[in-house]
């Protein structure tokens, strides 16, 4: 038999706070705590809601533009009601919203790419705000032999939908046959940029991310198909790519 642990009774302070916040999270279903003025409790409910609404609207400008106001407002209300965001840091609230989106069941009339788009918008913001710095490029003559890692300021991404093209006027209903491979990164001017990657480049960057410390030669050997007719060409092209990432300060020596 499983015995449930006995919960100590809540202190009056804990009970007061629980009654208060339960209402703020779900004002349409939870009663206002006894004895408190409905109008003034409405002020609190409004402050909590509008603050989170304006933070999240700022983090996901593209996603917001795809919703009509009423639906976006309803989604935020759902977030406040159902999700306990833990981060004390305001810029990280966007990440909490991604967790929320990934855990909830999407509604039928919502675009299927919503979570991918939100993730893409979040990664851009995360890289913009990151405390990391770009790397000093590794000297060219050492580049093929030293152990490499990918800067946290560069993120190779793969999406079913072309999230980088989605806008109010372009909202695909089904994913195209080819996935989208993107690199989001920060440049020396501290702006965030992206470009589309070939599948090969995506795989190379993923390898460097997942198993850092190998040399450029090793990564390229691992990726070169055994059936490749001209492995030297392959290696040369690959080194060209690595050299470009290195010039952009996106590779570090480990």
């Amino acid at each position, binding site marked *: 038999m499983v015995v449930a642990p006995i919960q100590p009774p809540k202190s009056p302070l804990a009970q007061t706070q629980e009654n208060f916040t339960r209402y703020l999270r779900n004002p349409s279903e939870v009663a206002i705590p006894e004895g408190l003025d409905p109008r003034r409790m409405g002020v609190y409910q409004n402050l909590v809601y509008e603050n989170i609404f304006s933070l999240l609207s700022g983090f996901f400008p593209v996603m917001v533009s795809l919703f009509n106001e009423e639906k976006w407002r309803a989604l935020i209300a759902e977030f406040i009601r159902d999700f306990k965001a833990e981060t004390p840091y305001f810029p990280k609230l966007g990440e909490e919203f991604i967790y929320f989106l990934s855990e909830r069941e999407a509604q039928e009339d919502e675009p299927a790419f919503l979570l991918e788009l939100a993730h893409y918008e979040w990664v851009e913001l995360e890289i*913009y705000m990151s405390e990391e710095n770009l790397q000093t490029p590794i000297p060219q003559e050492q580049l093929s032999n030293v152990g490499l890692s990918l800067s946290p300021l560069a993120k190779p991404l793969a999406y079913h939908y072309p999230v980088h093209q989605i806008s109010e006027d372009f909202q695909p209903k089904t994913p195209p046959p080819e996935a989208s491979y993107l690199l989001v990164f920060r440049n020396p001017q501290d702006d965030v940029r992206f470009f589309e990657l070939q599948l090969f480049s995506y795989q190379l960057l993923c390898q460097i991310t997942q198993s850092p410390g190998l040399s450029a030669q090793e990564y390229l050997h691992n990726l070169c198909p055994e059936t490749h007719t001209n492995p030297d060409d392959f290696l040369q092209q690959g080194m060209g790519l690595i050299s470009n990432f290195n010039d952009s300060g996106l590779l570090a020596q480990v």
Partner: protein
Amino acid sequence: MKTPVKLQGAGLGLRRSIIDSLHENIPEAIDFFEVAPENWINVGGRLGKQLRAISEQVPLITHGLSLSVGGVHPLDKELILNIRKFLDTHQAPLYSEHLSYSNDGGQLYDLLPLPFTEEAVQHVSSRIAQVQELLGRRMAIENISYYVVPEQAMSEADFINAVVKEADCDLLLDVNNVYVNSKNHQYDPEEFIRQMPAERVAYIHMAGHYVEDDGFIVDTHGADVIDPVWKLLAFTYGLIGTPPTLLERDFNLPEMEQLLSEVKQIKSLQQTQELPHGRSAHSAA
């Protein structure tokens, strides 16, 4: 525990929307800036560099939002240690938080009112003491604006005094909040300020607010400071001297000139008070 940075005069709340125009050319009228550490911890890139450029030129103080020091859920020690690191990095001479809670197991990112009870005094003071221990320095606690009192066993002034004494912390006296609360809860703001522990006031906040049709006030920090609040500030200076004073403006930001004119108004009130006839007993910690 003491820090060498001397804080005085008039400061401005630093929002991201104004940092771009400020970091290379800080107006002379601004003696210090204040930020919410929760907006800046672990933030680098352009924003991080701009903030660093500012804190290298003038003192930066910190005013937290997410500590939930009055909450019943465990204190976020990682947050507190990150705040400590942030204070050290920027040599920030002050950290303040609100006498409120914001966490019910998750963050609500707002300042919710505590009941004015002995239980709440004990609870919040012991947590403030823990925070001070982890920070290795004193903190200041702010009187919030509140719209309801969940339970009232003592007056707000007694509540604040008890917490400051029990926790052995400083007070961030928000003069606008005193005014807002005095209207919303019908009390005499000057009498309230007389009851505050003058020797504990580390600094003062000033702000504007929003008055609804029926006179009910919401503390938005989204408007200019109104005359009665200026008068209350002058009254406060007359009573306790002229601690460093910060203008908060979070929404509807006007042109920098307008913000600066309010910062200058703070300074001019301080200077008037500091003239020989004024009673300037206060020396800011």
